[in-house]
């Protein structure tokens, strides 16, 4: 199969991206974000879960959580490039909400076939969900899941669960008698204990979740194949979030170095400042092209989706780290303070960079595809 010249990024996708940008710009400027999430600078603070659930409800009403669900299952059936465009704007706004985990869940549930239909219907009705799969060592491989299901009862503790306090459903991957299966669990089911983590990122929440003999029925009993199919979309969306956030970091920093004067010149006059910011732009543009290519592959070149998504997530993770680093450095003293908004993006980027595989992790996987695995 071949990709269309414009990545399949048509008028509808452009409108969605534009309206998302407007939505965040008008409803949730960065100072509002800072007021909401950065009230307590104490390093030992317990993570609060600050977010604007009223705005979130508007996003749900706009249909943003069901964009990727096929029409015949109650969704909008937008192509992945359109979803990536929306998520780029989400990242630019660093908006705290369960959109990424819920969109991720829709890709997984769609890949589940008929078993995922009931859960997708709940999301179409406004439910939100997050993937529960990772062990305490932070393995992104589903066969390392710390959870076990025997005779319909789920046990164990899973870690690094995203937006756990914002969602109402858990999409759980556990080892079962038949291999690895996926389960759809209400987060307030008896036996489920959500323990929030104290995390660096102020725009997200994260938890570890203990399951004590929780009664479950599988939605799919071939989790390895399902996740293999869905992960390219998940990696690509996290990469899109980082590209949007990095663009905010770049533009904010450029604005600052154009305004701030030292030695009778704006900082941007000096090549020690100007050239690294150009390098940040180049890295963002590389990541961005890789993101839209990977998203387009999900829509129209599925046999390449996996390798292109590895490229996108690796590139975006590195670009995010670089943009974060330079943005704080070039703001000088003010960039090192809590009151400057930069740290919100710096921390969100670090979180996104790590989640579902950082640069080296994705390059190692890509090398297995392109160079063959090392015995």
């Amino acid at each position, binding site marked *: 199969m071949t990709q269309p*010249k414009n990545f399949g990024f048509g008028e509808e996708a452009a409108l969605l991206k534009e309206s998302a940008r407007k939505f965040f710009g008008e409803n949730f400027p960065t100072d509002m974000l800072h007021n909401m999430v950065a009230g307590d600078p104490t390093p030992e603070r317990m993570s609060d879960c600050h977010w604007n659930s009223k705005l979130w409800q508007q996003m749900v009403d706009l249909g943003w959580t069901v964009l990727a669900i096929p029409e015949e299952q109650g969704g909008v059936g937008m192509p992945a490039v359109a979803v990536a465009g929306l998520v780029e704007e989400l990242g630019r706004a660093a908006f705290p909400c369960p959109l990424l985990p819920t969109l991720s869940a829709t890709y997984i549930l769609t890949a589940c076939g008929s078993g995922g239909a009931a859960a997708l219907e709940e999301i179409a009705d406004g439910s939100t969900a997050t993937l529960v799969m990772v062990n305490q060592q932070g393995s992104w491989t589903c066969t390392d899941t710390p959870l076990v299901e025997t005779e319909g009862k789920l046990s164990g503790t899973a870690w690094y669960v995203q937006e756990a306090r914002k969602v109402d459903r858990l999409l759980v991957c556990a080892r079962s008698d038949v291999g690895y299966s996926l389960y759809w669990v209400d987060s307030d089911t008896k036996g489920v204990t959500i323990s929030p983590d104290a995390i660096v990122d102020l725009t997200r929440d994260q938890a570890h979740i203990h399951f004590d003999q929780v009664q479950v029925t599988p939605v799919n009993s071939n989790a390895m194949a399902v996740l293999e199919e869905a992960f390219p979309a998940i990696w690509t969306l996290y990469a899109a979030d980082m590209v949007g956030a990095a663009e905010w970091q770049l533009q904010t920093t450029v604005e600052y170095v*154009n305004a701030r004067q030292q030695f009778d010149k704006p900082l941007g006059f000096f*090549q020690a400042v100007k050239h690294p910011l*150009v390098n940040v732009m180049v890295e963002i543009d590389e990541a961005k092209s890789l993101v839209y290519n990977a998203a387009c592959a999900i829509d129209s070149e599925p046999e390449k989706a996996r390798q292109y998504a590895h490229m996108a997530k*690796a590139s975006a993770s590195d670009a995010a780290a670089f943009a974060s680093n330079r943005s704080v450095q070039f703001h000088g003293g003010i960039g090192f303070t809590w009151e400057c908004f930069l740290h919100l993006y710096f921390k969100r980027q670090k979180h996104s960079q790590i989640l579902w595989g950082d640069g*080296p992790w994705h390059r190692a996987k890509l*090398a297995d595809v392109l160079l063959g695995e090392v015995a």
Partner: protein
Amino acid sequence: MSESDRKDTSEQADFRQHARDWLVANPVAEPGERLPQTPLEIMTEGQLGYLQAWQKAAYDAGLVGCDYPEEVGGGGRKDCQRVANEEMMRAKTPFMPNVIGLGMAAPTVFYHGQEALKQRLLPRLFSGEDIWCQGFSEPGAGSDLASVQTFAERKGEKWVINGHKVWTSLAHFAEWMIILLRTDKSHKYEGLSYFVVPIRAELGNSVTVRPLIKITGETGFNEVIFDNLEIDDSYRLDELGKGWQVAMTTLLHERGAGELVTPRSGGLKSKSSHANNTSSLIELARNTVRNGATAAQDPLLRDRIMQMVIREKAFEFSQRRSRVPALQDHPMRLPLQNKLIMSEIAQENASLALDVEGAGATLYLGDENAPAGGQWPLSYLNSFGFTIAAGTSEVQRNILGERVLGMAKSK
């Protein structure tokens, strides 16, 4: 699947079929001697003759100058040069020798020359019969191009040129030169004018071409000294004092950011030629043994090779994204990155290849035991030509920082 298979217009589709058919029916013979890696290192008449014959054949088949009007020797088509390039790339035809002519002189003459001049010069430029060179840099004017001092003094309808140009690729074979000259010493930018000058006929008299030897050991670029060369005023492009604006047209196209797509051909056909890309790098890594396993199995090298693959792919996809306005923040943001990224990817790729080769990377072209015929050390050395020429990477970063990101000018 490749870029070329993405949807064509009907004109492009017909033209693609024509190009494909012609390329199959007219395979190019192997060269009689080792070809250099790029046209900028053509050293012998034999190399030049072989490559000129290829360019002429391609021009006669309509694969060169496709998007220029027929009146100036072009194909009169719309957005077909890209198609021709893709098909020549696919057919692995040799590169074209008149690279300065096609990439820089042609668009500049086309946008700024008088009609009669275009009709006279462009057909023989496209066919490769007239080789062109570019007289911009001088010993005292490199990154600060507008400080050129080579002077044209008006004498009636004539101009008399005196001065010294340098780094002039292909001048030793060139019939014509595009040249940036000072016509007024009292204004830096408005004192510049732009001409085309015939240099071949005056060689040894008022024009001296002296070859310079590159760090690779190859020749290909020269210094050119003008000692009272007289030319006609009809060779001026655009108005007097507009030289800097005309030079911007040249530079924009040289950096791959111009309106007209440059005719480009593969250069990968001959066994002796060498592709500095990640496919060659991966092949090298698979065939190089280090510490008892292949380099392709070394975890550190795998990571670095994947970084190269990712950058190379990103560049390819950025070309596609640059034609989707909805996915761009600034219209020149991607085009102005082309030259910087292309040249730096080539440099990093060759440098990594040397790390993959290990001890073998000490061996050069003349050593029969050199891996890949010693081409990788040549590629790495040669790569600096591209990060320096046509505006150094540092100048490119100034341009991007100032024109795209709006930061204060560094001059």
